[in-house]
């Protein structure tokens, strides 16, 4: 290993990277744009516009609707005077839920009978619909319980205390803030996308230009060329990580619960995976266009399987098994662990070890393949 030759490559890469202002801007701004977008785009389904057809028009029915409103998941935006009106609002997409209260609602209650209230939810988006439906059920039971207690109290019987009192507590992200969960995810995702893409393009471009051939004829070794190419990419990676963390702290007020040093170390471990994938693809592809298409076979599945969007524990078994081969899965767990939970190496070492093993495997395979192609 001749360090001067590696450094010569690195200098050239730095010069080229910083000369192209558009690439610099794109590479530096994209992560921040992603943090902002993911941070504000919440998957929370609160305040669903709701259409109401209240045939009862009683104090009791108003109480029921109030309970729905207080849940914060339903917002009574429209009033309908027929079933057709309810259907039309939902079909138009103006309302996502409809509540129909029967005319005998209050009378049935007074007679001690159980009236039926219809809650219809637009279930096109199954996840959102599931939330709305379970909130509706919960509203129903709590209103029923209240009515029951009132009825019992009215008969002058002391209210028996039975049942289980669940004390639910949110740990780590106590305020249940979406951005606290999303920031570490975006950090991991940006590392994966930006680094893989940059390392892939820097080598494929040389091949396309014909300059790779010129480098092959020079005395430079593959290892020196690799190191020289990787150094500037790692710099860019660390600039991105730092920018995202600063954004998280000062813009979103997301605290870093754990050790920043450990975080930066695991980023280094993750470089093996991302840069290795980039090199691997550039040994398979002849042109830049080909490479950008090939890399999707790696990036898309690993994003979906990693637990960035869908929790790994909720996946069907074969997919969950597959996710254990995705380095991003481990990196995501580690980054979330450090930033949100503040756990240290004593909890995270198995993930770090597996990430390192997978990454080294990819990297060594890629560099050996590259050697064959270039020599």
């Amino acid at each position, binding site marked *: 290993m001749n360090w001067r030759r590696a*450094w010569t490559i690195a200098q050239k890469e730095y010069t080229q990277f910083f000369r192209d202002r558009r690439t610099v801007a794109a590479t530096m701004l994209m992560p921040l744009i992603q943090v902002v977008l993911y941070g504000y785009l919440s998957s929370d389904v609160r305040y669903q516009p709701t259409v109401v057809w209240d045939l009862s028009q009683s104090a009791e029915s108003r109480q029921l609707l109030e309970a729905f409103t207080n849940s914060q998941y339903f917002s009574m935006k429209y009033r309908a005077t027929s079933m057709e009106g309810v259907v039309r609002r939902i079909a138009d997409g103006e309302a996502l839920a409809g509540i129909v209260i029967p005319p005998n609602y209050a009378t049935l209650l007074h007679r001690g009978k159980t009236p039926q209230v219809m809650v219809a939810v637009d279930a096109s988006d199954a996840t959102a619909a599931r939330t709305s439906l379970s909130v509706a059920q919960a509203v129903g039971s709590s209103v029923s319980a209240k009515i029951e207690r009132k009825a019992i109290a009215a008969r002058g019987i002391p209210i028996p205390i039975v049942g289980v009192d669940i004390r639910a507590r949110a740990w780590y992200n106590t305020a249940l803030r979406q951005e606290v969960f999303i920031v570490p995810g975006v950090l991991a995702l940006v590392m994966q996308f930006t680094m893989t893409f940059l390392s892939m393009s820097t080598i494929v471009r040389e091949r396309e230009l*014909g300059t790779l051939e010129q480098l092959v*004829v020079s005395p430079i070794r593959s290892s020196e060329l690799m190191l020289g190419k990787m150094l500037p990419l790692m710099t860019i990676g660390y600039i991105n990580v730092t920018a995202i963390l600063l954004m998280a702290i000062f813009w979103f007020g997301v605290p870093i619960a754990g050790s920043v040093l450990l975080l930066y170390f695991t980023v280094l471990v993750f470089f093996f995976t991302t840069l290795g994938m980039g090199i691997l693809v550039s040994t398979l592809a002849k042109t830049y266009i080909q490479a950008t298409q090939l890399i999707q076979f790696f990036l898309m599945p690993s994003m979906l399987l990693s637990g960035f969007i869908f929790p790994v524990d909720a996946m069907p078994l074969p997919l969950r098994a597959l996710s254990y081969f995705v380095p991003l899965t481990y990196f995501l767990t580690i980054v979330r662990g450090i930033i949100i939970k503040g756990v240290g190496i004593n909890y995270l070492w198995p993930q770090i070890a597996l990430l390192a093993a997978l990454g080294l495997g990819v990297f060594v395979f890629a560099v050996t393949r590259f050697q064959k192609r270039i020599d």
Partner: protein
Amino acid sequence: MNATTSVHVERLGKRFGDFVAVDAISFDIRAGEIWGFLGPNGSGKSTTIRMLCGVLEPSSGTADVLGFDVARDPEAVKLRIGYMSQGSTLWADLTVQEHLRFYAGLYGMNGSEREERIAAWMQRIGLGDRRAQLAGTLPGGYRKRLALACTLLHSPQMIFLDEPTAGVDPVSRREFWDIIVGLADEGTTVMVTTHYLDEAEHCNQLAMIYNGKIVARGSPEELKHLPQIGTTVEVLSNDTVAVLDAIEHLPFVRGAGLYGSSLHISLSDAAEIESLNAAIAARGLSAGAAHSVLPSLEDVFSAVVQPQ
């Protein structure tokens, strides 16, 4: 192989799948020689050069460059040679100076040694005051000059130039050849490919390659006197195209082609000149009498690649 031999190639071959790009060729290049490799595109010139530089692995045969077996010890060869490949090898977003510093760095130069060499080569190659210009904005001729300077910066013992003058204007081409001849005079061995046959006159030794096989070799003078070429005659006329039409299919004409404002006609024997003159006169075409001339390298090439 002795000290005066730079390249020794024996039955070197390269196949890509079923396609034989280079078919077991053998040749030697002496130190300090300008060795020209002539042939049309796709005949195997670049493939051979790329094998000699250690870019491509040969399928068969051996090649020694500067005393090292390219297949076994490519790194030893790479340290001692310079290679200018066909097409652009520059980064459009780096300046002339950045290119030269980069290549200097790859060969372990730095500090004042590096700067002195860069200044010296910029002067010699004629890059003048373009030090700070981006390679992408250089005119074609200057791009080739920069590529050549990058190749020569580390003073290689031998240089391989693959079509160095392709797409270069005539004035720059002449200057290029002045540089190449100068380098050879200083003892650098030069292997150069070209399909400009007029340029080949600058070479000490030539090999003509066609479909992966060497079909003729020798100095330019020797090639022009190859027995299979026969006699070449020149006919001057104001209507060369009509004359060409008239004589092309005569039984004793082996080949004919336009050569500037005249015709070059290849005959088996000098005795046939009279019959040729008679044939032209019989058609009532106005033309000067045919007289024998030294064949051009183009005549030689078309003669040696003709199906026997």
